[in-house]
Each structure stands twice: as structure tokens, then as C-alpha cells.
């Protein structure tokens, strides 16, 4: 046993941290972990080793079992078999508190926050500082501020979590994980809602922690990030351990090959759609309640894929939600085929041929306790009504169409959607909207938190839809995918339209740079 003793101020708390490791310097060894869910073997001899001060990327397609493996470590799930050694001693955490007490902290893929409470209460939840038996709000405030200063996060600890943007909430959650002074930190897709600059910020934090001897397990789908930040990469497929390699010896293509078990020549399917006549015109659209879009004007052609780019907080989501009518508009007009339309609410928008795929899948898109059938048909119940009742036969047929045409991997139509992987959930929801036969699809981060293989399928799907003459507006934070599949890219900056790029005409090589410049136009 080697003891690495670090003394001094460990972030804000003065204490001695002893990190014990075995001879081969392993902080954590997970061996032959197995976990069975109803109908699915989620983990099958999965393994992971983590060294002191190491950033270890855990990769695999959605449903490969990455999150499940981490939840077994963290005590959210109880593993069926296998052993976990931490600092050379066998551990078996039965609940998150147990894991936290032993120095394992985790940022979960889905943000677990109490929305109606403020940042500092969320941060110190489960470990409130006490003074004479009462919660010491002053200390809580000061400590939060100290951590924020250390991590260079500019948020007010007293802000209510529910009023923050997704990326701000993400940063607050990361700061919370840091506040545990853990020896092992698990980050489950922390960058999926962060813009490039914020990702850099996170990486700085991660390096800072590693230098202090913390071992970080990092789950992400963004290859370039992984290769840049991590020391080691472990790849999983179908719940099994596939390989663990040094990051320096790997290339993006190799990772993809290991992940999918086949070559993926191209990340994007070939573009085959040809935009036609102008279908929708948006003129001077301004929303009613801030933050919202301001004076936005653009048009959308038939069979076109229009990307919307911009920094996080540039109100891309607000723009499409205002078009869809779930956010109130103050002024401006939307014309479809030259006809003025008023999407006062989502029902009217659906009748007008719009469909909206929301950004936060779990909060605003899923009915987790309901089956695939319900989730696939919920936006389209009207068309199943027969003599005043819903026809299960028709709903079954449509659900089958969704499962088949979207290639959804599920044991049955009755399976609760919460048991599916993120990518498969997303496919069901896209299918849900296609059943309403929309002319204009508004997709908000359609590939967020989805693995490479499923991403490709979703790109193909989007292009197929455009080929059929449907128009797609797609909001995304990933520039390569916008450049890869869009015809034009609208760049938003601080609520305004900063410019529209024609990918087919403009030089591809400079597209990314142009977008960056436009993004900062009104900041």
C-alpha cells in the first residue's frame, strides 16, 4: 500500500486527505460487475480501473451500460454480481449517502436538482453546515461563494435553481460535486448542454482536481473532448467491457470502431435533399416575456434543413418555442405558404402542421411511467378516435410503424419508456411527432446525449424527412453536425438573428469561423 498524503487547503476546507492505493496505484477497481433489469442484461462482466489523479473516459453507445455501471458504484443500483475495490478495500455502497461518505461524488446525466430552492441549498443538501444545531446560512453562503471563486463560476448562491439556464444549472451541479471533496468524481455527460467556452472551463476545473489527486471518471459522447482531456479510455458495448487504452494511442475512428464494433466511415449521411419554394416566413418576431427572441426574421424552404446555432443563452430555444406558440409572442408575424398564421398554443401549432421536439427530454418530452405506445401516440390521439373511443388497433399499428421505421430497440410496445436508452427514447419522440404528419419540424438539440451510431440514424432520418419535402429547423450546440447536415445555418446572438449562412454556397472551411464571429455580434 502506498499512501499519498496531501495536506493544506483542499479547496475551501482545511483537512488532510489521505488517498490509499494498491501496489499498481489503483484508486478504484470494478471487476465483473453484473446487473439485470427486467428483460435486459444491462451489465455483463463490466469492469473499470481508475488511478489516482487520472481522468478516465468511459465510452460506449447509448444503452452500453455506462450510466448503469456508475450507478452501481454510487449505490443508486445494487449490483447483482462482481466486486468493487476502493483503495484496496472491498466496498459495496447501498445508497448514495454511503458512497458520498466514502468519497465518491457523481454528477448525474439528468440534472437532479430541487428547482424551487436556491443554489446554495442545493449545493449543501445532505450536508448542511450547522451552528448550534441550526443550519448556518451565512457559512453556507460564504462556502458556496468560495467554491465558485475557486472554480471561477459567476453565479449568485442565492439564485433559485429553476430560474437558471440549463448550462448554469450544469455548472452549479459540477460545483456541488466538487464541494464533497471526493476522491473519486464521476461526471456523466457533463458537457451535453455546455457551449465550447464552458467546456473549456469545466476542463480547467477537472485538471485542477486531478492535480490534487482526485480520480475522475468522465462519460461523454464528444470524441474530440475525450481525446483531449482524458488519460485513459475504457470502451463498453452491450454492457460488456471491450477495451481500456491510453488516450494518446487512440484516434476517433478507432474509438468509434470499438464502440459500434464496425467501421463508421462517415459521421454524416450524404445530403440528398434539395430545398424548394419558401414555405414559412418569419417577420420581426419578438417574444413577450424576457428572455426571448427579438425582432427575428427569416424564411424556411420546403425540403430544407435549417440549422440554428449560437452560444448557450442566445435564446435559440426561445425562438422556436415562440414560433410554436408555447411562449407568448409580443409582435411580429409568421406566414406559412403566404398565409398569416397565429400559433397561440401548441394545439393550434400542431393543426398548422408544426411539430416541436423539446430540449429537455425527461422534463418536457417523456411520460416515463407509460409504455412506448402511449409515448408514441400521445400527440396524435385525435386520429385514433372511433365512435368516441380510441382504437387500440390503430394505435398499435402506428406504434409498430414508429418502432420499425425509427429502428427503436425495445422488448415490446408495452415496455415503459424509462427502460429504454436515451437514443431510443429520442427516436420514439421523433416518431411521435411524425405521426401528426407535420410540414415543419422544430427540433431542439435532437442528438443531445445520444451516441454516435444513434446520431447517424437521426441525421439520416432528418435528411429523409427533408427529401420527402418536409422542412426542418434544428437547434444544435454541435457545430460539426449543423455544418454536416444543414442547408443553411441561422446564427443567433443575444436573442437576435446575427446572420444566415448558406452552407452550399459559402466556403465550408470557413463556416465554423463565420458562425463563431456571428455568435458574438450582439453580445
Amino acid at each position, binding site marked *: 500500500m502506498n499512501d499519498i498524503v496531501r495536506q493544506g487547503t483542499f479547496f475551501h476546507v482545511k483537512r488532510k486527505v489521505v488517498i490509499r492505493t494498491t501496489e499498481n496505484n489503483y484508486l478504484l477497481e470494478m471487476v465483473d460487475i453484473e446487473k439485470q433489469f427486467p428483460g435486459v442484461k444491462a451489465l455483463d462482466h463490466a469492469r473499470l480501473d481508475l488511478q489516482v489523479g487520472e481522468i478516465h473516459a468511459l465510452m460506449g453507445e447509448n444503452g452500453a451500460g455506462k450510466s448503469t455501471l456508475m450507478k452501481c458504484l454510487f449505490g443508486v443500483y445494487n449490483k447483482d454480481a462482481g466486486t468493487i475495490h476502493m483503495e484496496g478495500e472491498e466496498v459495496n455502497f447501498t445508497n448514495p449517502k454511503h458512497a458520498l461518505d466514502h468519497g465518491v461524488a457523481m454528477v448525474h446525466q439528468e440534472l437532479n436538482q430541487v428547482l424551487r430552492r436556491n443554489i446554495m441549498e442545493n449545493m449543501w443538501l445532505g450536508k448542511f453546515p450547522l451552528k448550534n444545531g441550526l443550519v448556518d446560512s451565512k457559512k453556507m453562503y460564504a462556502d458556496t461563494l468560495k467554491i465558485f471563486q475557486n472554480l471561477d463560476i459567476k453565479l449568485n448562491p442565492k439564485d433559485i435553481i429553476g430560474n437558471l439556464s440549463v448550462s448554469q444549472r450544469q455548472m452549479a451541479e459540477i460545483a456541488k460535486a466538487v464541494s464533497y471533496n471526493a476522491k473519486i468524481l464521476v461526471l456523466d455527460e457533463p458537457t451535453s448542454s455546455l457551449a465550447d467556452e464552458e467546456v473549456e472551463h469545466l476542463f480547467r476545473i477537472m485538471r485542477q482536481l486531478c492535480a490534487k489527486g482526485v480520480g475522475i471518471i468522465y462519460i461523454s459522447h464528444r470524441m474530440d473532448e475525450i481525446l483531449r482531456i482524458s488519460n485513459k479510455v475504457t470502451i463498453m458495448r452491450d454492457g460488456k467491457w471491450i477495451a481500456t487504452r491510453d488516450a494518446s494511442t487512440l484516434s476517433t475512428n478507432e474509438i468509434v470502431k470499438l464502440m459500434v464494433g464496425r467501421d463508421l466511415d462517415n459521421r454524416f449521411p450524404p445530403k440528398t435533399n434539395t430545398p424548394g419554394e419558401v414555405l414559412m416566413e418569419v417577420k420581426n418576431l419578438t417574444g413577450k416575456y424576457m428572455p426571448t427572441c427579438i425582432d427575428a426574421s427569416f424564411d424556411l424552404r420546403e425540403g430544407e434543413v435549417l440549422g440554428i446555432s449560437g452560444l448557450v443563452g442566445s435564446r435559440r430555444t426561445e425562438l422556436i418555442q415562440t414560433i410554436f406558440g*408555447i411562449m407568448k409572442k409580443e409582435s411580429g408575424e409568421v406566414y406559412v405558404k403566404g398565409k398569416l398564421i397565429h400559433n397561440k398554443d401548441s394545439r393550434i401549432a400542431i393543426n398548422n402542421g408544426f411539430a416541436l421536439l423539446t430540449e429537455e427530454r425527461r422534463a418536457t418530452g417523456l411520460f416515463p411511467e407509460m409504455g412506448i405506445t402511449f409515448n408514441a401516440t400521445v400527440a396524435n390521439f385525435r386520429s385514433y378516435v372511433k365512435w368516441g373511443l380510441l382504437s387500440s388497433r390503430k394505435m398499435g399499428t402506428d406504434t409498430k410503424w414508429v418502432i420499425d421505421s425509427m429502428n427503436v430497440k425495445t422488448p415490446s410496445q408495452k415496455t415503459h419508456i424509462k427502460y429504454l436508452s436515451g437514443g431510443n427514447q429520442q427516436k420514439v419522440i421523433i416518431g411521435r411527432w411524425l405521426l401528426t404528419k407535420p410540414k415543419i419540424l422544430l427540433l431542439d438539440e435532437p442528438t443531445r446525449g445520444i451516441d454516435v451510431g444513434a446520431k447517424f440514424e437521426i441525421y439520416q432520418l432528418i435528411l429523409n424527412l427533408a427529401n420527402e419535402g418536409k422542412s426542418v429547423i434544428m437547434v444544435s450546440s454541435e457545430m460539426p453536425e449543423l455544418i454536416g447536415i444543414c442547408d443553411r445555418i441561422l446564427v443567433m446572438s443575444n436573442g437576435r438573428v446575427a446572420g444566415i449562412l448558406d452552407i452550399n454556397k459559402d466556403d465550408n472551411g470557413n463556416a465554423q469561423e463565420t458562425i463563431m464571429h456571428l455568435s458574438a455580434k450582439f453580445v
Partner: protein
Amino acid sequence: MEKAIAGKVKFDKRKISEFLLNYALYFILGIILIVVVIIEPKFLSLTNLINILKQASTKGILALGCAGLIVLAGTDLSLGRILGLSAAVTASIVQSVTYASRYYPQITKPVPLIIPLLISIAIATAISAFNGFGVAKLHLHAFIVTLGTSLIAYGITCIYVENQAMGSAMALSTFDMRFTNIVNGTVNLMGVRIPYVIFYFFIASFVMYIIWNKTTLGKNMFAVGGNEEAAAVSGVNVTKTIMGVYIIAGIMYGIGAFLEAARVQSVSTSTGFNYELDAISACVIGGISFSGGVGNVPGIMVGVIILQAINYSLYYLDVNAYLQFIIKGVIIILAVSIDVRKYLNKK
């Protein structure tokens, strides 16, 4: 430029409407009282104010207990029956020792009042803790488990009350003077006689305010009610939190039962009937959201007082009794629908 100015004006307008929404309950209370005073100027007297506060006090203590369960996204249907049982047991112990047909003829010397108080609290806490166990461990919805315990508590109350040597089912009455004095006694404050019970209510509110805002249990309660999963992954012991909140509710019910017995001075099997509805109404009027995780103690106090002020003023104005129900129903719906506005996301 014009746009910027227009934006600013709108912002101010929003601020005003936000202000109105945040203090909607207080405006409602004000408007009701103004209307009553316009109709009957004599209503505006210190005696009436004190009467309203006095009547609100025992209900307020019950509402303070029940509110925590609503913050946990639960409810309590057993409150009234728990109170009935605790009050019956209290009453049986504090009957005057000179009263011939007392429940316990073997009590010949007055019992120290702390004993019935502790027994009352013990009974209420035991049942409420069982409710908590049902919610936290058996994973029952609070509606179901409290529905069950309300029946159980009622059954026990009936058996207990009807088990009297002298005639069955007789209301327990003729209490020791010291006991009734606990509630009905008054403090002379600058010429105004204020009943003790009002002080109890304010003390209980203060203690509850501290528990909700300054203790780990209180903060965890909001976390569990607002997002149980988030609380669990943050290392909060959810079971312990739920149990703690139910136990505190039980203590409040026990105190409430003790005081209510002293206030009404006669306890029968129907004592406490439908009290839970008053307590729950007061909580929701006071801004405790049924979706969980939201609420504060001053809100509950205002809720209780609004409800009692309405009751009292309708009675005072001699409004038809059936019409009173209708008016109260409308006011509850109106108050809550205005209050929930502030939590709706503006889109």
C-alpha cells in the same frame, strides 16, 4: 431606441403585477375585511379581532403540523380523528375530581396537567409516525395511509369513549378549572384581555418557522418534497426526513388536541370531525403547494386567519348558513388560483 423605452415600461408593469401576485393573499384578506367593515362598521372592534385570532389559534397549530406533510407532496386525512382520540383521552383524565360520573373514578386528586398533555402528544405522535412509516417505508400514498389511520383512530375513539361506567357514549365534560383556564385564561396587556391560546399559536408558529428555515430537517423536507430523487442522490436520508416531518406533525396534533379539549370543554366521539379539511384549506390558502416543495410559515398563519376571518364575519353578518358554505368554497378556489399564478412559468 423606441423599442428600448417600450421594453422598460413593460418591465415596470411586470414588476407591479409580480408584486400583486406575491402578496395576493394579503390583499384578499384586506379586501374581505374592508367589505365586511363597509357593510357593518361595528365589526371593526378589538373584541372581534381577538375572537378571530382565538378561534384561529387551535386550528392554526393543527395546520402548522399538517403543512409539513403537504410540503412533502402528501396530505393528512387522519388529522381530525387523531385529534378526536387524543382529546378524548385528555378529557377523561382532566375531569373534575368532584364530578361523580367521571371516566376514571379512581382519580381522586387532580392530576398535574403535564401528564394529559404528554399522553395526548404521545398518542397523536404514535399514529402520525405510523402514517410516516406507511409513506416512507411501505411506499403508500399519504392519502391512502391517512385514510386508513383515520378510520382506525375513529374506531379506537368510539371504543374508548363508550367504555364508561356511567352510561355509554356520553360526552366527556365537567373539566378541572385549571385545565380550561389554560386556553381560556387571559393576559391583561395594556387593558386588552388576550387569551393564552393566541400566545400558544404564535409560539408554535415561531418554533415551526425555525424548524422549516433553520434546521437540516426543514431544509431536507423542502428538498424531498421538491425533488425526492435529487435529495436521495445528494445523500439525504429520505426515510428519516419523512418520519421526522410526520412526528413533528403528530406533536402539533397532540398539543392541538389538548388545547381543543380545553377550548370546547366537552369531548365526544364527533370531536375533531372534518378538522383536517379546515387545516388543509388553511394551508392551501396560505400558499402551500399540493405539488410539494413550496410554502412558508407566515403563509400558513395568514391562511388560517383568512379562513377564520371569513367564518367569523359571515357569522357576524348573519349570512344564511348554507350560503356561508358556498361563499367559503368560492373563496378557497379563488385564493388558491390567484396564489398559484406566481409559480406558473411565464412563457
